[in-house]
């Protein structure tokens, strides 16, 4: 299913409270897991935050990381996301300073990538692109031809397409410990 040395996505639900990010990131560092991105935000439940991690490694390491994560008191649930059965997205903001003659061309490639121009001024434009990592990588590569200045990426966030049972409904409201 997962070949060695690829990006594995892990979905983690945590108590939304101070210090959780430190505890989780400290685990990667101390056990030498190779994390390439972390995206955090609120979830559908009060007091529960969703962290989407991507790690470089094989399935064995990912399974081990999930076990360690689930041992943390503040972690409600951790699981490996099957990318084939999930929506996987990353958002990037890309700032370019194109030559005047390139502006029209930018508009067309922004369209091809289903990106949007969110800022436009005399000397710069900012494009918002979202999609999977490969698409964002390709978009940024192309932007280099048009005076690429700065990139900000959110890191991957993902949701399984499967209908999840709500068996853990009450958990979000319990005290974590």
């Amino acid at each position, binding site marked *: 299913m997962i070949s060695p040395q690829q990006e594995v996505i892990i979905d983690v639900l945590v108590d939304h409270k101070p*210090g959780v990010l*430190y*505890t989780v990131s*400290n685990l990667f560092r*101390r056990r030498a897991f190779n994390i390439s991105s972390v995206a955090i935000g609120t979830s559908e439940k009060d007091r529960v935050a969703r962290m989407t991690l991507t790690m470089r490694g094989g399935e*064995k390491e990912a*399974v*081990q990381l999930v*076990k*360690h994560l*689930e*041992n943390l*008191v503040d972690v*409600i649930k951790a699981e490996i996301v099957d990318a084939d059965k999930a929506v996987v997205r990353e958002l990037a903001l890309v700032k370019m300073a194109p030559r005047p003659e390139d502006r029209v061309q930018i508009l067309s490639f922004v369209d091809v990538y289903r990106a949007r121009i969110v800022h436009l001024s005399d000397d710069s434009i900012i494009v918002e692109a979202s999609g999977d990592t490969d698409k964002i990588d390709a978009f940024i590569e192309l932007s280099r031809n048009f005076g690429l200045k700065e990139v900000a990426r959110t890191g991957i966030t993902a949701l399984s397409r499967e209908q999840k049972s709500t068996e853990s409904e009450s*958990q979000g409201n*319990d*005290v*974590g*410990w």
Partner: protein
Amino acid sequence: MEMSGANALIEALRREKTQAVFGLPGGAIMPVYDVFYKMQDLPSELSIRHVLVRHEQTAAHMADGYARASGRVGVCMSTSGPGATNLVTGIATAFMDSSPLIAITGQVARPFIGKDAFQETDIIGVVTSVTKYAFQPRKAAEIPQIVKAAFRIASTRRPGPVVIDIPRDVQQEMGVVEFTDQPIPRRYVPLPDPDPGTVVRMVDALMKAKTPLIIAGGGVKIAEASQELVALAELLMCPVATSLMGKGCIPEDHPLSIGVMGMHGSSETNHVVPSADVLLIVGSRLSDRTTGNIDKFCPDSQILHIDLDKAEIAKNKTPTISLVSDAKKALKAVHAGLANCLARKRGSPWFQKVKNDIDLFALEKDGPYLSAVRAIRLLRKLLPRETIVTTEVGQNQMWSAVHFQAYGPRQFITSGGLGTMGFGFPAALGAKVARPDVPVLDIAGDGSFAMTENAMATSIEERIPVTVVILNNRMLGMVAQWHRMFYGRRYSSVKLGRSPCFPKLAEAYGAAGVGVQDYKELSDAVKSALTSEIMTIIDVPVSPEENATPMLAPGAGLEEAAIA
């Protein structure tokens, strides 16, 4: 009811039936110590004993020793900053050996947090890697629930240390606090019972086994599963090896016990383990010191692994069948499954062969000094069966692991995971506080003992009599041994010289100290120490050349030839 945070803390500790707190005061914890002061007049069943230490590291080790001897949560306390950082070695020691410890630290007042105030250390940041959890109450009213949760986290599932870091102004502030005996709502729940299907598969594998063997680790002690372990071993008539942390979970004079395996295990034990066709591993994380080179570990054996921490399954070695469970429940379930289909064996050719191969007492030797090995075997003969023995770290520890038979699960206390020199003496004091009814003895080296010798003051002032036998080779012996074996006898910074004279040092503290010259004197000294009202140091001169053998070279597999 309305009370201060400091009062709430002590009341919460009392409700958790805390008998003793080991600690040392300072600026950021003074409101709590004021409560201790006021408690002095209360009858003992309403108060908590405070044991004053001379260095916070020993407070953590004492609380840890208390926990390991009794199975109850040990509590230590310090001020902020250096007080808290001094606890860290003790917290890490407890973490590595899964010992239930609560460390309460003072913190600077809330308005000063993050301002680099005097004696401010971000202790939660410091200890995150070596604790199960860390709390920082921000209101007095939070304290009762936090203390309750801390005890639960420290003592359930895989036990471990928890820190409660309390800002000084939270200790002082008055708040409306509520104490409830109701369990707090929580996700953090005990584990379910062992999966019946997996138990059936394990039973099946053990039924088919011709040469089964059990490796028992510290988890068996924590789960209080010694009886279940022995019952299963007797049903299977199979030998039981232990890790260092598991030492004593089967009485080592039990016919099925084959002693401690691993880097310093006897060669016979280490050779028998890989010849098992089915290995049942219970409550052991299979550390490198237990398995030798993990890539060479028992390649031909079917491995059944029981551990209550799922992260330990397949962390170091991938098992054939694994069961995430408390050791007691799992051993009971496997035993029940086997008992249904297996008539109790009278004997087993496999086991006879094992017993013929292993003669743990074949190693005796002597020399110009007192032999450490002989001294330790003599101690076993002299000490009552129920004696709790602690060790320091290094040669003294490995000699004790091999040559001092432990007869019960909470009777051999050692820093196995972290290997903390200076642990054994304060841990012995903590053990004695928990079990004043039994003799407690620390088998020490001169290097280790010197690290926490200031705890002698605590022993005398608090009237906690223990015995310390120092196997004195005037060396950092284990490092010197490595120099001999692997560094061409280049002794780099291991010679400790003649200082101090330990019996005189003992006298300076008001303790008893005696130097012995032969086994008769050692015997007399131990006998009198056991009945003494004050602690005794017995200084035993041993050869700086005596090695703790057998020993597997680093990187060697269990079956490879050990250095004898």
